[in-house]
């Protein structure tokens, strides 16, 4: 994951939210549970401790109540767009969502239009899923 963080921090046209606060994590997890969504997996929380939400050239990694209006909130995004109680949406680009499937314990790239799972990454491969959504190139 450090490799991705390094690449991200080198980008000029990226917006990164400040690290999330513990209090906000608890509040968000409660909100998600009470609305019957899966909670945020630990592997993703680790990201939020470094960057609470990311926006890069039309792609987004969601965060918890991010301070900037162009960064997207996990809870709000799920309330607005998620109809699957086993999935938690954690990011998106123009075509797809990045979702966490609590049944298969994996990250999935899900087509926004027909909900087809296009890619699936085990939890340990979150970095690849994030790279897919953000399309950041290290050159």
């Amino acid at each position, binding site marked *: 994951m450090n*490799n991705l963080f390094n690449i991200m921090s080198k980008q*000029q*046209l*990226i*917006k990164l939210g400040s690290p999330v606060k513990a209090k906000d994590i608890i509040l968000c997890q409660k909100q998600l549970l009470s609305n019957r969504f899966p909670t945020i997996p630990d592997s993703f929380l680790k990201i939020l401790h470094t960057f609470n939400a990311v*926006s*890069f*050239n*039309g792609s987004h990694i969601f965060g918890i109540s991010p301070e900037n*209006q*162009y960064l*997207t909130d996990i809870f*709000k995004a799920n*309330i*607005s*767009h998620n*109809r699957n109680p086993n999935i938690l949406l954690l990011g998106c*680009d*123009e*075509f*797809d969502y990045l979702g966490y499937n609590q049944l298969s314990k994996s990250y999935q790239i899900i*087509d*926004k*239009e*027909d*909900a*087809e799972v*296009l890619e699936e990454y085990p939890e340990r491969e979150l970095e*690849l899923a994030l*790279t*897919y959504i953000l*399309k950041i*190139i*290290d*050159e």
Partner: protein
Amino acid sequence: MASRKNKKAFPELLDETDKDVIALRKIFDALIDEDNPPLPENNTVADEIPADDDITKENKILSITDTHEFVQTFQRLDYAWKERILLKLFDRYHFGDKTVDLKHKFDKRQSDKDKLIDSLEYCGMTWVHKMHYPLHRQEKHIIRIDYYGTVNKPRTDQLSPQYAQALKNQEEFPKESYKIIRKSPVWKLFRHAKSFRLIEGKVITQLQKMKIPPETLMHMNSYDFSDVLFEAFNKKKDHTRDKGNATLFLGARQRFVKDFIRKNKKSFIEYLQRHNVDERYISALVQSMETKGITSNIKPLNEKYTPEIIKALKKHGLNTSDLRTSQKISEEHKKFLYENHLDNLLIATDKDGHIITGPQFSVHHKIAVQDSSEQPNLAQVNYFQNLCLVVDVPYHRDIFHGLDETSPFNNREAYSARIYLKREDTVFFGGLDPQDQIFYDYTKDPRTLRRKNIDEPQDEWEHIGLNASEPKKQNTTEIKTQTLQNIMAYREEYLSQNLSEKQIKQNIKKIARQTNISPALIEKLLNIRDL
């Protein structure tokens, strides 16, 4: 619309007095004349709502229970109020009514949805409910690569067994033998888009380098080709080489942004100025759009020395005695600031020390990918005529996708509802006020017409859109319209082919037979005699 009178669709080719041409032009105009419904007179305060303040007025409007009455009130609001009410309504639709207890929070949901759907009609938008046949996964894969211009390294489980086996091959093959690539069913799909046709040579070179037996090409899936593309374009040489993604070309998204700003720079800058965006932000944004095709997370940089920069340089032992705040920052000093992680000092701030910010924009597919894929040509999904630059917040994020719905269909989820813009020629949407929108009809752009017809060049006749089995199902006018467009768009291609006179005559006869258009008219349209 007024400007259209002065424009000729095909100025150098057509006799404008020809009755066939006049008839066809009427058809073209009828196709693009669909406008928004007439907007009611602007009225800053809806008459029947005397409001003490904005919040009271907002609450009064939102508390109207009858949908018809609500919409009547809504249509009389000015654009700023329309936006405000729409956003509040979306908020209540998604998050429930915060003014009532938890049990009744979503009681108004259906009524709010009805109000939203009806109100959008007065905002130049419409909610379309439609069932779809989902695209094939391989097609989706190609559309995404074409749009972003990047490719991910596929996982081994995504590769076909034939390709996985071929990767172990040690035998070399001559480059000529890879010409068979054009017969590969999946590469044919890639070739729908010009971007892939342009890099075909590099793909062939890479296939040869990887010693892939040519016969494997017939069995390769889109992930196999992605693997070849990744290997051909991946510039990394370290341990991360097998991960991540590689840039193939400038994606359709960025190409669109560059084209948009080239054609609409003045109107776009005027829009930003009307919304009081800082000039430094405008300049940085426009530059980013022109050079990179990027519209978000713009950080305007200081062009001149600031007291903070001079202080930092002095602190690091550099001679700053000659530096003045009116001077342009030297490249050498810029480099020094970057190398010493002081580049934050280069970011422009306002007089209070806040970083200068401004609106962000995203590229939006006006027509859902599923919808546009109903076209016979896969590449059309990412054509400029299907793309629109939209102010990210609130429009792209909260409104344009605020009523997206999917529902089960043929044992699969299918996109069933979405908000569409009424004017298909919208290329920029910056607000509900038509002043904040920019229009450009890409369907009439000669480049689009040419491209539409060269994408997927399977054979000479399909090339120009004449499929022998199809015309019988269409009426003559449709055929004439299509054919005229195709012929015009392809005139240049014909020119480049250096066809003999005999070949040209044979082709004309074939078109005439299939379309019931007289050979003389086709010849006139092609202006063959003048070539």
